[in-house]
């Protein structure tokens, strides 16, 4: 009985509605957390798995020895490798292609690689505008590696003791 009366009073004084309005009214004045994306960026973990890159040794020699472990381990079959014997007798890749549409960014290729050649950088802001751009060729991968070597090395350094 008392409960019913309280309920009736509450519903006719719009009690709950005012409580709701008060809550949103409070949030109106709260500090906003929005990150203004192109100008501001959220911090990225060194473990972030973004765009791929192929690394080189400090002397400029490419690391990849065409062992095809990455190709074998890739769960999405995104990597295609062709190998040949180079003039100096070492085994190298003739072509090394990653299809970004197939890749699931699992990072298994990086884990499988015995010489730390294929790595996943922390870059996530890239886009594919034309058909065919989704295939990362060996040249592109090496270029990405050259460009971001410092960052890549720093991230590996930081994460090294957990590997």
């Amino acid at each position, binding site marked *: 009985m008392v409960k019913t009366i309280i309920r009736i009073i509450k519903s006719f004084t*719009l009690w709950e*509605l005012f409580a*709701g*309005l008060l*809550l*949103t*009214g409070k*949030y*109106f004045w*709260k500090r*906003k*957390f*929005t990150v*203004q994306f192109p100008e501001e960026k959220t911090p990225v973990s060194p473990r972030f798995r973004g765009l791929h890159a192929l690394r080189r040794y400090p002397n400029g020699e490419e690391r990849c020895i065409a062992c095809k472990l990455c190709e074998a381990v890739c769960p999405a079959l995104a990597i295609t490798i062709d190998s040949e014997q180079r003039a100096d007798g070492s085994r190298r890749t003739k072509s090394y292609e990653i299809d970004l549409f197939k890749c699931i960014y699992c990072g298994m290729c990086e884990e499988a690689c015995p010489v730390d050649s294929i790595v996943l950088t922390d870059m996530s802001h890239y886009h594919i505008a034309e058909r065919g751009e989704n295939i990362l060729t060996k040249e592109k991968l090496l270029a990405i590696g050259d460009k971001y070597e410092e960052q890549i090395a720093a991230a590996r350094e930081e994460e090294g003791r957990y590997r």
Partner: protein
Amino acid sequence: MNLSQAIIELIWIVLGIIAIIVPVMIGVLAFTYAERKVLAFMHVRIGPNRVGPFGFFQPLADAIKLLHKEIIIPAVADKFIFILAPVLSIAPALAAWAVIPFAQGWVLANINAGILYVLAMTSFGAYGILLSGWASNSKYALFGSLRSAAQMVAYEIAMGFALIGVMLAAGSLNLSQIVLAQSGGIWHWYWLPLLPLFVVYLISGVSETNRAPFDVAEGESEIVAGYHVEYGGMAFGVFFLAEYSNMLLISALVSLFFLGGWLSPLQGIPGLETWFAWVPGVIWFLIKIIFFSFLYLWLRATFPRYRYDQIMRLGWKVLIPITLIWIVVVAVAARFNLPPWW
């Protein structure tokens, strides 16, 4: 009256119309901007901030975008009515502004039956929605417009009854006179003596404009966008304009009927009254409109949409009985000049 006099009068009327329509349109633009900002702030977001300082020109950018878009008329639509419907929804939304007194004597058409005119115009907007739903030949649009029609019928009654209370209290149908009848300070405004009617009118006003939490006619999550689902480009833009100018209109009407229109809230307070005597009435009126417009956005940010049957229940079983009872109370009070207000 000879011809030249008639022409001069006509020119004055056209100028008056322009002087009303332009601020209303600017108000609508500012309102859409405010809506996005206020909603964003209540969601702990920032809202549009790219176009111009603080994103202030965002509505202009939106308008340009809408103007550029193609108007697609569905092949199975009734083309004439399809095009007519947005016109029918915006025309009454703008026409109703003709009788709004913005300050003492600042009114385009000071007609005696102002309230009736306003009621007629706000109800007329339902035709635009109904016809758009029917002409689109789409089930979502039809559902939206049917819901809107049923809702309008239900809330129109409560709205009308609430206004009957105002008429009884003011003893007039003229909007300026209703405002003047409220003079004498903030506690003489009708929001206090007619508190239940004020609340009912506010709720039915929100429902009448199909705004959250009564926006089942649009109901994005159930029927996509309701009655204007088939509209694109500026045809949609016109519906949009109509909706927002209707909201401004209801805000203005609530201020007129229950919050003393252009009257200063400081009336009757010694000292303050004379200090603020220089503030023109239209400023007070604007402040009241802005307050109610903000309330619209606040409600939208706060309440989830009512279910359709709940809307009907609220309209028929709660609001209408309350207004009926309160009309009797007001009538008795007004008849026997009961203190403190009559």
